[in-house]
């Protein structure tokens, strides 16, 4: 062994943190099962329940001609990506509570690399969950997605990146897991309903449409729905551009929030 002077490159630090987030998540069996189970519950109870009710001309108008399943599957997929990535930010609080954060802080690794790695790892977890949900739900669609698959994946990735960053920024700024949960649920519920993930916005009142413009998830849901079911509210390029910008902006906020927690 040679003494002293060890330091990881930016990329190594980033990838090892991403690896750690993934590994840690995969170890928690209960969380793993829950994270797959929850979207399935939505699909079966909410999806199957409404799909037999929402037929007829009014429903057709509200859903722009899609079957309810074609409407709701992309929504539930994005919703699961959203909830998982957003909540993953709470891991910062656990890591502070259980000391692991100190181990990271005292390491000679770039703070930016550390936080990017965490966000990336959290995003990968969320995407994994979205992909699994989509795979299970594919038989419920009127036709399986083809060209849209890579587009849907990109939308998932950008959405996950945006919300994992936002969650991490919040996690860096609050002290207790209870506060985080409170903020999470207060932000997540309106975002979920305004995003058009499970409630169609096509015939929604104007104020609701306006409000939804402010919700990043709305662009992700719209992009995924365009890609999977072929019906869009906004042009795909606009969805993706807005998503990418938001993801970058939230990433920047997360990096700053993390730097603020360290004195030197």
């Amino acid at each position, binding site marked *: *062994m040679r*003494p002293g*002077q060890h*330091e990881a490159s930016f990329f190594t630090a980033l990838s090892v943190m991403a690896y750690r987030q993934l590994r840690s998540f995969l*170890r928690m069996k209960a969380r793993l099962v829950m994270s797959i189970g929850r979207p399935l519950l939505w699909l079966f109870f909410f999806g199957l329940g409404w799909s037999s009710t929402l037929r007829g001309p009014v429903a057709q108008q509200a859903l722009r001609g899609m079957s309810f399943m074609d409407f709701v599957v992309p929504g539930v997929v994005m919703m699961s990506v959203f909830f998982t990535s957003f909540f993953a930010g709470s891991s910062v609080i656990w890591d502070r509570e259980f*000391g*692991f954060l100190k181990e990271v802080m005292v390491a*000679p690794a770039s703070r930016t690399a550390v936080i990017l790695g965490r966000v990336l790892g959290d995003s990968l977890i969320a995407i994994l969950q979205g992909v699994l949900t989509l795979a299970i739900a594919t038989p419920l669609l009127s036709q399986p997605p083809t060209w849209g698959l890579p587009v849907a994946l990109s939308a998932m990735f950008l959405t996950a990146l945006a919300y994992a960053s936002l969650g991490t920024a919040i996690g860096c700024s609050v002290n207790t897991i209870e506060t985080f949960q409170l903020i999470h649920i207060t932000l997540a519920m309106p975002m979920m309903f305004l995003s058009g993930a499970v409630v169609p916005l096509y015939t929604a009142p104007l104020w609701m449409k306006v409000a939804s413009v402010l919700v990043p998830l709305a662009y992700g849901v719209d992009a995924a729905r365009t890609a999977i079911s072929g019906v869009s509210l906004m042009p795909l390029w606009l969805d993706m551009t807005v998503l990418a910008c938001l993801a970058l902006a939230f990433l920047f906020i997360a990096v700053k929030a993390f730097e603020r927690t360290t*004195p030197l």
Partner: protein
Amino acid sequence: MAEPIIEARGLTKVFGDLVAVDHVSFQVRRGEIFGFLGPNGAGKTTTINMLITLLRPTEGEAYVAGFSVLEEPHEVRKRIGVVFQEPTLDRHLTGWENLWIHGRMYGIERSELRERIDMALGLVELERWAHVPVRKYSGGMMRRLELARTLLCEPEVLFLDEPTLGLDPQSRAHIWDYIEALRRDKGITIFLTTHYMDEADKLCDRVAIIDHGRIISLGEPEELKRSIGMGVIYVRLTMPERAKELVGALMEEGLAQDFRVARGARVALFVRDAPTFIPRIFDIASKLGVPISEISYHMPTLDDVFLRLTGRGLREAEAGGPWLSRRRAMARRWRA
């Protein structure tokens, strides 16, 4: 003397209106085991946190391995290893995975890291537990794993904050052996804090005794113990209110060089020759009519040094009032 590997000059940390560390200055020589001994809340952890770049000093400066903690924290981090008071492991991961992540964070190449992990786990005798999640480890095993983790990159300075806090006697002895082996075999400089005087006495080449954020004494354990005389006699009285009177008479006779009245009617007398003095103390006490309920003597310990310097025993200082526990909570808050 060679350049010190750690140097603190007027290091100070203030939390609100509380001075946790108060203009502390000291030097640590390369290759020595240097200890900070003091009761909980004395400012030990706060000092460590400033030295390892996790806390910005309010005032003063510090150099570790030749780099300023304030100006070049990244260079300092490259050269140090830290074992914190509380575990800093990812409990969901196995011991092996924790070491892997650490090694990669410090830029050790994969193939080399695999070898080093095996070696480090072997050193702390945790090979059989390598692939078990850390949450199933005992406190002592976690501490050993953390020690192994810091050895992956052979730091120039190893910081250990209360390395045996809360461990059973066997685990403590184990950790002590590892620490001594590290210094002996690898020449790593070790800076440790402890509130156990036996630990400081056994392990440290030099000890700084710290109380209320100030260093009140610094030197080799033997030297510190010699400074208070050849022995310490403890006298317990049934009438504590008469302690002053008895001590006055003993001092007059030249039987004690110094004394401290500790809690529980216990008087500590720092003397030159305890065995021959004991009968004379009885004589004087009976002449005065002050009944002695118990008398004992022993060779000076670091605890006695602390008692002489502060008027409190280390253990008494520990059981401090509410302000002490508040002080401790503040000191723990490294992200202040």
